[in-house]
């Protein structure tokens, strides 16, 4: 029996070609499965629990209130400085990273780091870590500018730097890049571009520090800004030799208009997320994960105002949560601390770190050192990066003083 004549323009495969094609397709599927089909992901079993209390014999907690102010970036180092991130290194040193140049988004903006040695002394002179030209060379593409960056050590001691670069458009055209360092940030691997968005890989930004899963994965809070604004969690899987083995990003539903998530681990399973509010409500929002950061509750607003500005948080060793934020519905003229003793359900507004009309204090970041002392860096009037350090005794002293002031 002759096959039916093909329609005009038809160019169907012969039976033999079809068989060969089907076999080829099956072989291709087998090839993908053999090469890496087992990369399926699920929620981490647990995250690294927050730091346990240090033994009292070691002199902790400090009974004497302590507060000190200082500077990370020297005067007039760059005309503009912004977006600092801070971490405590395994050696005990503190490492800060920020971007500086003639103005935010300028082509001359570079990423700088500075170190505060545990052995004593002040912040080291800023070290240039990345600029537009270096990023262009390492990533083999046009880079218009670099921006927000975070640094953090993973539990194995490998130091990570994740930074924003833009090839097209403004900040909403951002993409993320990763570098790692095996020597506490003295040398870095070449940058690796992460593809996190299907639309030309546009619009993924980073601001705050990650959580660490027991299985080695790193949950880095990131966010999307183009068309719709929402938070995401980027899960990084470290491989051998300091390389990034795998990564994937999860959108967080029900949190539209909320960006720059900051994560505070409460215990091995629960993580609190603080969110910057871009809506007209101008209230800080919270979300809670009960499965180590994999899924999140719908965000709810707190009573604390948020003038569309970044916040950060830290779980203190006594279980309370400390946050730093701008206490206003508009403007970033003050920077304040608040503490929650009930895991974010209510907040007690505490010490004022900065307050000057018409000035800007923003993008705060918190870290705790080995001795349990708390460190805060932030943008000071867009000119410099400032550093404050304090202990829990000082926090409690300030809270008590505020309570007394409220008494009739």
């Amino acid at each position, binding site marked *: 029996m002759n096959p039916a004549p093909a329609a005009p323009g*038809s160019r169907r495969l012969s039976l033999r070609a079809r068989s060969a094609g089907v076999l080829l397709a099956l072989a291709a599927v087998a090839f993908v499965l053999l090469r890496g089909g087992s990369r399926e992901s699920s929620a981490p079993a647990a995250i690294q629990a927050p730091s346990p209390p240090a033994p009292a014999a070691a002199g902790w907690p400090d009974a004497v209130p302590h507060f000190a102010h200082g500077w990370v970036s020297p005067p007039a180092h760059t005309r503009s400085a912004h977006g600092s991130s801070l971490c405590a290194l395994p050696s005990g040193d503190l490492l800060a990273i920020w971007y500086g140049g003639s103005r935010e988004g300028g082509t001359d903006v570079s990423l700088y780091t500075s170190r505060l040695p545990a052995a004593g002394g002040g912040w080291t002179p800023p070290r240039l870590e990345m600029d537009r030209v270096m990023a262009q060379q390492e990533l083999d593409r046009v880079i218009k500018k670099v921006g927000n960056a975070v640094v953090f050590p993973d539990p194995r001691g490998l130091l990570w730097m994740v930074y924003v670069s833009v090839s097209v458009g403004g900040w909403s055209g951002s993409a993320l890049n990763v570098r790692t360092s095996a020597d506490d940030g003295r040398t870095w691997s070449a940058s690796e*571009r992460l593809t996190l968005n299907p639309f030309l890989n546009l619009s993924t930004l980073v601001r705050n520090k990650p959580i660490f899963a027991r299985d080695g994965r790193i949950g880095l809070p990131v966010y999307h800004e183009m068309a719709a604004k929402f938070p995401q969690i980027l899960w990084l899987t470290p491989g051998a030799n300091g390389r990034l083995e795998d990564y994937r990003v999860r959108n967080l539903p029900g949190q539209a208009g909320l960006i720059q998530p900051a994560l505070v681990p409460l215990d091995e399973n629960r993580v609190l997320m603080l969110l910057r509010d871009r809506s007209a409500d101008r209230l800080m929002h919270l979300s809670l994960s009960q499965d180590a950061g994999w899924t999140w509750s719908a965000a709810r607003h707190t009573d604390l105002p948020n003038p569309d500005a970044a916040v950060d948080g830290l779980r203190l060793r006594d279980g309370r949560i400390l946050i730093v934020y701008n206490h206003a519905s508009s403007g970033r003229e003050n920077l304040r601390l608040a503490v929650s003793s009930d895991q974010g359900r209510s907040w007690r507004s505490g010490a004022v770190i900065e307050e000057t009309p018409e000035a800007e204090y923003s993008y705060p970041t918190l870290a705790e050192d080995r001795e349990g002392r708390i460190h805060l860096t932030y943008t000071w009037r867009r000119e410099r990066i400032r550093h404050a350090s304090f202990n829990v005794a000082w926090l409690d002293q300030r809270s008590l003083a505020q309570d007394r002031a409220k008494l009739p």
Partner: protein
Amino acid sequence: MREKALVGFYIAAVILFLWAGLAAAARRAAPTAFPSRRRLLLGVVAAGLAFLPLGGVPLWVRAFSFHPNPCLPLLGLGVVGWGRVVLERSWFGREDWLAVWSFGAVAGTVLYVHPLVATDVDVYFWGWERGVAASVLGAMAVLTIAGGLRAGLLLVAALVSLGLDVLESRNAWDYVIDPFYWLLSLGMLGAAFRRAIRRPRRAAAAGLS
């Protein structure tokens, strides 16, 4: 090593598209005079253009900066287009084109429009599940090829490329769809739909006159 392979792959893709574009333009300008030597020469010109510095940056780098993950169906269509204008071979029939544009339109619309409509579903995340993605793509490729369509081979190419991690992206979606392929698919389907609507009207008008 992987980065070097990626760059080499990308340069080859840029040259292919430039070559096909130049050949199409040359054929249109002089349809009767298009000897094989001239076609080859256009390939050399395309290779030169790929490395032509524009504002100090080679053209391929500019393309890579803007579109780092061209999907395999789009690259496959580039190869088919190149074959058509340079080798004068027509590898795709009408049903192949319809399948290619339909797949691009549906896949692109699902992937790019869903975040604006249904934020609770994270379709892009499915692409990280390589095993699942490969199985779905494989099933689609088998069905398409068993139906006699060469277009199914584009999905096979995407699968092989995914296995080899050819693109910068590690997400399976980026191997089968990109914004340019999506928009091209919508445009081609729209044009075909318009032609299909006009045809009966013309026939009716001709019958009346």
